[in-house]
């Protein structure tokens, strides 16, 4: 027989407990709770206080895991982007969501890879898709698209069929062919 799991509290109670724990951990740091449709405890955090909030949530509220780091493009709203951090507590089995609003002409947020090294890939993907820079990331390269790619495909102004999607391939192929014919000409001249 597997041991019986302890009865879980009602969702509203658990949510209230999470909010209380988060608010306690963030005492004295600028943040704001907002209501969301899915009922997950959600905070709006300014960019300047983001690292402080994240490190407090990790150390004091025991959110041991960064489940994902991503962004939302709210074009044409200003500020345009919303960087979303979602954290998961292994100890308390609950989640919290952080939103940081940033403008398109200053599209950067501090990295959280010093707190959760596993967030590195998610930040790279976010950079690749939205062009949001994560300041302090040790290896902020594109993750999915080719490294020479110029666009950020998940930005709202990007057409889903792409802008010259085969341009990089054709350039590569042209270079290869030229190289081939040069080598061939060299061999022929020998």
């Amino acid at each position, binding site marked *: 027989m597997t041991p019986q799991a302890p009865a879980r509290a009602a969702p509203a109670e658990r949510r209230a407990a999470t909010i209380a724990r988060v608010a306690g951990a963030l005492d004295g740091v600028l943040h704001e709770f907002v209501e969301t449709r899915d009922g997950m405890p959600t905070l709006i955090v300014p960019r300047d206080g983001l690292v402080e909030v994240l490190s407090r949530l990790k150390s004091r509220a025991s959110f041991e895991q960064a489940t994902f780091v991503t962004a939302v493009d709210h074009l044409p709203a200003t500020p345009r982007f919303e960087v979303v951090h979602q954290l998961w507590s292994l100890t308390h089995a609950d989640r919290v969501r952080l939103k940081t609003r940033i403008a398109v002409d200053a599209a950067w947020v501090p990295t959280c890879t010093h707190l959760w090294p596993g967030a590195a890939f998610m930040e790279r993907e976010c950079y690749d898709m939205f062009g949001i820079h994560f300041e302090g990331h040790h290896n902020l390269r594109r993750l999915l*698209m080719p490294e020479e790619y110029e666009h950020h495909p998940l930005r709202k102004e*990007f057409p889903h069929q*792409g802008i010259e*999607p085969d341009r990089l391939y*054709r350039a590569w*192929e042209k270079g290869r062919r030229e190289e081939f014919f040069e080598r*061939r000409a060299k061999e022929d001249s020998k």
Partner: protein
Amino acid sequence: MGSLNPDPTRGADAGASDLKAWPGGPKTYAGTTPGRGPHPDSGAVRTDSGAFRPAGGDRGDTSPLSAADDSGNGFMASSLDFLINWGRKNSLWPMPLGLSCCGIELMAMIGPKFDLARFGAEAARFTPRQCDLLIVAGTLTWKMARACRQIYDQMPDPKWVIAMGVCSSSGGMYDSYAVVQGVDSILPVDVYVPGCPPRPDAVIDGIMKLQKKIEREHPHRRLLRVPDSVEERGHEMILRAPNAAVEVEPHTSSTHEKTTYFVDQSARKPEEGAR
């Protein structure tokens, strides 16, 4: 089911009606690149239905016992062609380029249940240098396209390409910035197998179609240095005529609009509304 390149100028169901035009059951006339008419030397005639029929009636076979094959070549040349083609078509060595779910069906096809060995093509090798049949199975992205093209270039000639599944045939449901809208925009494709993914027997059907197509090739021309037509085999021309025009046509907003082969453009008839 697998089909030879459907004639782009005659609509999607043109191939089916062509098959009906053959007395004695479906036969595939694969001596030419579809859409461009038969080889100039072939003496083939156009039937009422618009299908091209080889000269010499509906014989359809390439037996050396026939005085000459449909290309109008003599007994020696057609015997040589028959022998070489017989060897080639019955020992295809596939290079499985499994890119997504089609790769699973490809494995099933090679495995014991569907048993591609019955068609002499079970010896899949994972090095392109030992293969002559590239099966592009799955969604090809532009990032992967470079690897795909390199694999194709590393394969020794003669070589054939099967686009397996709708993704590799046309991009499929991925009308996206990241996906190649049909591998024929980077490679010359011999057989397209629709399906998402196609069943293994559909791919086997495609391979049988390819075997029919190989039967109709004229390898003696290369062997005996007989001048060949550019239209016969686009990708042989790539290797043979390095100084031919290789200008890449400028890309338009949708890759559906243009199919680019690296062949001598001056020797090629313009295709209206290709694909």
